[in-house]
């Protein structure tokens, strides 16, 4: 629940999603769901020469189970707020 809420707050920001097959896709976070499936808009594959497989894709749906990392803008995170929320969640609250 925590990360679902967290990603909902990040909608509209530009993120780079790195997948478990090493593919990295940069785009604007459009939406997220309970499985942490991610929809990105205006996508561009990082290293397009190596991965031309998605050259004509501009919007995509990424299944949560294949995400390795979601790279965020440095000031896209209020670390203290997140830290507090995580502490509360860990406590079971």
């Amino acid at each position, binding site marked *: 629940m925590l990360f679902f809420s967290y990603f*909902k707050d990040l*909608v509209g920001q530009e993120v780079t999603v790195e*997948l*478990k*097959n*090493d*593919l990295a*896709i940069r785009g604007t976070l*459009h*939406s*997220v*769901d*309970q499985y942490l*499936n*991610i*929809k990105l808009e205006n*996508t561009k594959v990082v290293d397009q020469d*190596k*991965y*031309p*497989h*998605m*050259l*004509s*894709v*501009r*919007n*995509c*749906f*990424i*299944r949560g*189970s*294949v995400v390795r990392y979601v790279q965020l803008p440095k000031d896209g995170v209020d670390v203290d707020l997140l830290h507090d929320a995580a502490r509360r969640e860990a406590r079971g609250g």
Partner: protein
Amino acid sequence: MATATGLESLVDQYISVITNDGRNIVGYLKGFDQATNIILDESHERVFSTKEGVQQHVLGLFIIRGDNIGVIGELDEELDASLDLSELRAHPLKPVVH
């Protein structure tokens, strides 16, 4: 709505699916469910290689199990038509490692 990441907006669209074994399958999305199982019509697989251009293998009507799906991309048909697939050289995508 930020919470409604359904595939509904992609139904009847031309999409590109990247599967967990590194395959790229293109077709029209006809249906889906909560597990991301999908029905793809008029589908064909695009095989990339470093030696020759992209090969297309016609598959027809397929159901792809959600477990096996990585990415579903909305293909811009105009952009896609302007691509010269015979000139593209690339290593095939790596399989997903959990």
